[in-house]
């Protein structure tokens, strides 16, 4: 059975229009106009045990809202979902004992206390016995290299260290499902990398199912085989991130290095030149003709080095965002 099943999940928010200007404010005092925003609409997906899935999308696309519904924080407006066989928003204790959510911008640690007090608190909340608790704590602090920091007040820790504590706190009870909402937000590159490595390791070791949202491409690219791209509340892509480009781009990038100067005109027969300085050139070439054309070029030019690359994923995603999710159906089959 699948760990997470979501069918036609939707969530809309009511909010009040805020108009600028004094006169409008005065008017608001009397009557406020309410508007409805569809944060998530008709999302369906299935996630198997041990999968590590990334939710990617611009700000306000509905990633967090989806995660909140899956963790039972929000009731959906319509649709169904089960996580570990439970309906999340029924908030059953048995369900809560088996999952965990980490929000990059919200802390569950007691600010003024040493981190180990908060960890101990979670031990009690999740009813973890002493032995497994010490085992998990030893293991996690070892991997994350924060053993010495346990007795330091949380407020004195750096952002990266705090995030590590945050992660430990949420893993004390060995959750089967872990939701991570922007776990690397605001962190420096090294900390980001550390956290990523840890998550990868943890996922492999424990076979826990992980859903991760981020707007850092690197997070998702590095961690998740499967990426779900959400834009304007809809799933616009579900699959391997590296294959996003196959949908839009039939081109490849080749980088050439010559032993002698090659004029621009000579190259232009083979494809679009994006960079050229005589000894080096970068070109975009149609995928289907790649083999034939590269052979021709190797024969014709004094080529020292020759590499073929994919078009960067960012460009594919950009195209997805621009499409506003209209191609949802056709994409889902890929």
């Amino acid at each position, binding site marked *: 059975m699948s760990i997470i099943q979501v069918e036609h999940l939707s969530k809309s928010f009511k909010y009040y229009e805020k108009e600028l200007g004094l006169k409008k404010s005065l008017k608001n005092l009397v009557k406020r106009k309410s508007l409805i925003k569809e944060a998530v609409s008709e999302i369906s997906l299935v996630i198997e045990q041990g999968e590590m899935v990334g939710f990617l999308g611009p700000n306000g696309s509905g990633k967090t809202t989806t995660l909140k519904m899956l*963790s039972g924080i929000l009731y959906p407006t319509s649709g169904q979902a089960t996580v570990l066989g439970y309906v999340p928003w029924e908030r059953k204790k048995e369900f809560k004992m088996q*999952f965990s*959510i980490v929000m990059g911008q*919200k802390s569950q640690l007691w600010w003024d206390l040493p981190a180990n007090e908060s960890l101990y608190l979670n031990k009690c*909340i999740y009813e973890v016995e002493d032995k497994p608790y010490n085992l998990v704590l030893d293991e996690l602090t070892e991997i994350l290299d924060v053993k010495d920091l346990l007795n330091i007040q949380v407020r004195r820790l750096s952002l990266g260290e705090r995030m590590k504590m945050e992660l430990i706190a949420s893993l004390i009870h060995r959750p089967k499902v872990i939701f991570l909402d922007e776990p690397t937000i605001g962190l420096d590159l090294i900390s980001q990398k550390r956290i990523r490595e840890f998550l990868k390791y943890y996922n492999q070791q424990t076979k826990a199912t992980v859903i991760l949202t981020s707007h850092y491409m690197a997070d998702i690219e590095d961690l998740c085989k499967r990426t779900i791209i959400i834009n304007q509340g809809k799933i616009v892509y579900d699959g391997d991130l590296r294959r996003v480009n196959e949908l839009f781009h039939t081109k490849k990038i080749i980088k050439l290095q010559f032993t002698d100067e090659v004029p621009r005109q000579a190259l232009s027969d083979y494809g679009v030149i994006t960079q050229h300085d005589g000894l080096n050139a970068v070109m975009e070439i149609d995928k289907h003709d790649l083999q034939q054309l590269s052979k021709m070029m190797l024969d014709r030019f004094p080529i020292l080095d020759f590499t073929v690359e994919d078009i960067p994923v960012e460009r594919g995603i950009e195209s997805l965002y621009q499409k506003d999710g209209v191609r949802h159906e056709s994409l889902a089959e890929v």
Partner: protein
Amino acid sequence: MSISLSEIRKHVRMFFIFAKNSLVGYMEYKANFYSGLIMETVFLLSKLIYIIFVYQLGIEINGISPDQMMIFTGTYTIMIAIYTGLFMDNFYRFAGHIRNGTLDLYMTKPLSLQFMISLRHVNFAFPIPNLIAGITMIVLAWQRLGIDPSFIHLAGYIGVILSSTIVTYSVLLLPQILAFWTVKSGSIFDILDKCWDLNNMPMYIYPKWLRRIGLYVVPILFITNMPSVYLIDRLDLFLGIWIFAAPVISLLVVRLFWKLAVKHYESASS
């Protein structure tokens, strides 16, 4: 929701861990503790102004003598100690949990959300001066009025205080729950604070209709008046029953309202 014994035990244990954490927090900031202590003493003095005023007048107000008045003020001060010690910190932070979205995190914990939000912090600084002053006033007035210091009287008084504590929790938590609907709830707290000040004076200075509302509808007057009324022998049968019924009913109401609010909860950030 079924309430099992082991769940209750877990929550009690959690409460002590929360209390311990609060205490550790105080240890980390000792200066903060002392300044809180001093300030609360100032606060206490400003409340005592009423009883000073009454003694200065030296007359019975609506049939209540200054000494009897001191029973009321003493009880009031003890109730302040209980309120500030157990509840105030939590209630004060309530809206913040919603605004910052930390409530979202608590919601996913296998522990009663209401418990976690409303009994998370214990204040050790504020109750100290109030407890000392309150008990002193009660002992003083007790002697001056010549009330028999029997076990029955003492146990009864403590019992009614307990009943009042539950009512305090319910009545003061109730408006905080409104923060689920309006985010900026500063004035909700304000209104409460003022409501609470009604207890500065015995309920007998208020007209009958207000007394009835304050006892039976929004039992804010219940809090300090019932223990005092018990001591100065003004209790009738109906009020006697109410001492047992009010905490049960008010706790039930606040629980239901809480459930309703959580159901309607939409977190601050979409």
